[in-house]
């Protein structure tokens, strides 16, 4: 077990090293692509906390991703940059507050009903922005000037620089991963695991499970907000698609393909998902058919194959490498 853990640690160190060095040799397109992948990996890990570790199948996770993006767009002044150090925590807090409000209602439900009501709330938010003139309606709104991270005369990083955005995303990914690992080992994390396995017994042991599920929902929503904020910063635009069910479904696929309840798995799932999407979209013309236009057909086929061949996802292999105590 020790040796396997060492191998796993070595793989993680190598991946982090490659990611850290990527902007030194890769073209701008790939640097931006991987920044986007890392942002999606943060979103996927936030959903894994709910889905994989607590057993709450949220089908409206895009709501919290989009909420932070919209919060930034609405906070940002008409001309000139927003302050990163205030707009970032405020946007994440907006996502957390939304998760608190929605969670307060949905966490009472279970199973299929939980899936339905999380989807319903996310769709309500989607149509709130899609059907009204708030923040540009269905077209979305541009964030013309990126937030500034200037403190006095010192600017630790500039979000106008794509390499800096890349490193901010990498740093956020690493911090979120470590935070979640610490959280899952804590008494709170163990309560979540207990709820996933047998909520009834948790109640009879004296745990008010509603409170813990709600706290988990809020933490997960806040982390999704970190991803949403970074995404809005990277693209300089927010639109209702950031809140839509298609994104919620994609993130769920990333988590399931990667392997629920492994954290690293969903991050790998996010990379796999986005690289495949890009790969299938750039398929050439063959026999008079634009294969790339029908990329979703290939994606669907891949999902079916992956489900058959990797029932526990890519991260299933990682899970087996963990000590029984970790899984306890």
């Amino acid at each position, binding site marked *: 077990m020790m040796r396997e853990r060492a191998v796993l640690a070595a793989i993680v160190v190598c991946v982090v090293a490659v990611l850290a060095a990527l902007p030194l040799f890769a073209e701008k397109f790939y640097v931006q692509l991987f920044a986007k992948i890392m942002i999606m990996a943060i979103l996927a890990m936030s959903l894994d906390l709910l889905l994989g570790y607590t057993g709450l199948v949220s089908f409206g996770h895009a709501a919290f991703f989009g909420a932070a993006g919209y919060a930034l767009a609405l906070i940002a002044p008409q001309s000139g940059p927003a302050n990163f150090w205030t707009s970032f925590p405020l946007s994440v807090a907006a996502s957390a507050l939304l998760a608190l409000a929605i969670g307060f209602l949905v966490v009472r439900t279970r199973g299929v009903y939980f899936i339905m009501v999380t989807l319903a709330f996310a769709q309500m938010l989607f149509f709130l922005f899609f059907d009204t003139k708030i923040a540009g309606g269905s077209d979305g709104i541009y964030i013309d000037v990126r937030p500034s991270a200037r403190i006095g005369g010192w600017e630790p990083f500039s979000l106008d620089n794509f390499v800096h955005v890349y490193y901010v995303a990498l740093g956020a990914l690493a911090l979120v991963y470590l935070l979640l690992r*610490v*959280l899952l*080992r*804590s*008494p*709170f*994390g*163990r*309560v979540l*695991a*207990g709820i996933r*396995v*047998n909520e*009834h*017994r*948790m*109640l*009879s*042991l*004296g*745990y*008010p*499970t509603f*409170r*813990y599920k709600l*706290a988990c929902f809020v933490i997960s929503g806040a982390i999704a907000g970190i991803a949403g904020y970074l995404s809005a910063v990277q693209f300089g635009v927010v639109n209702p698609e950031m809140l839509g069910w298609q994104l919620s479904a994609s993130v769920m696929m990333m988590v399931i393909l990667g392997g629920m309840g492994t954290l690293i798995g969903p991050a790998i799932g996010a990379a796999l998902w986005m690289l495949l999407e890009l790969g299938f979209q750039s398929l050439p013309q063959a026999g008079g058919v634009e294969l790339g236009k029908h990329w979703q057909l290939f994606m669907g086929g891949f999902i079916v194959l992956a489900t058959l061949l990797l029932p526990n996802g890519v991260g299933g292999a990682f899970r087996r490498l963990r000590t*029984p*105590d970790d*899984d*306890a």
Partner: protein
Amino acid sequence: MPEVSAGALATRGLTRYFGGLAAVRDVSLECRAGEVHAVIGPNGAGKTTLINILSGDLAPSAGQVILGGRDVTGLAPHRMSKLGVGRSYQKTNVFLPFTAFENCRLAAQSRLPSSMRFFRPAVSNREVNAAAERALAAAGLEGRGPVPVAALSHGEQRQVEIAMAIATAPSVLLLDEPLAGMGAEESACIVDLVKRLAADHAILLVEHDMDAVFAVADVLTVMVNGAVLESGAPAQIRASRAVQEAYLGEFTDEGASGT
């Protein structure tokens, strides 16, 4: 009604209907600290329904549950647990993928004022770990802590069930057929444990193993069709004509174990 001592559990006129059927009908009993109160009766007598009401898993249709002089009728299971009412289940109700130790550790962790603790590792709390180890040892599972419960024998899983109830440090213990599915050796261990626990716990025991019941019970209540048929000291129950006719007879005559 007699005075209820602190830490003791009592019911007054407890009734629970399922549709038109009274699963528990007008049951008044008392379970004092330092005493094992056994509830016996044929299948369908309402024993488990009674425990489910006492633990908060079910709300009664009528009547009161009183804990240490306080009316706790209809409180949720987690509130009852926090007030010191621990229970074990007839059907093993544990965390199968977790180790035996983690099952008990999670049970012991529930006694922290709050588990909204996010940063220190759960396994670094020495008091909680020690309470879990004590519960494992008490239930005869010493050395079995690191084994996932799913990999334990059925009898050992039953022991985990009881160890978890103990790990929550209850003052009142509701044991629902703790010996069901246990081997002779494991049964003897649990009977010893119940005797030891009786010194400073109020124990309500539902059990079909009559030898065990008469070995540990201070008070016996016989239930038939949801109602109390007779209640009193073991000798009194043994001598009771009504009880023999209604219930004990079928055991002594046919030698059925009832499990």
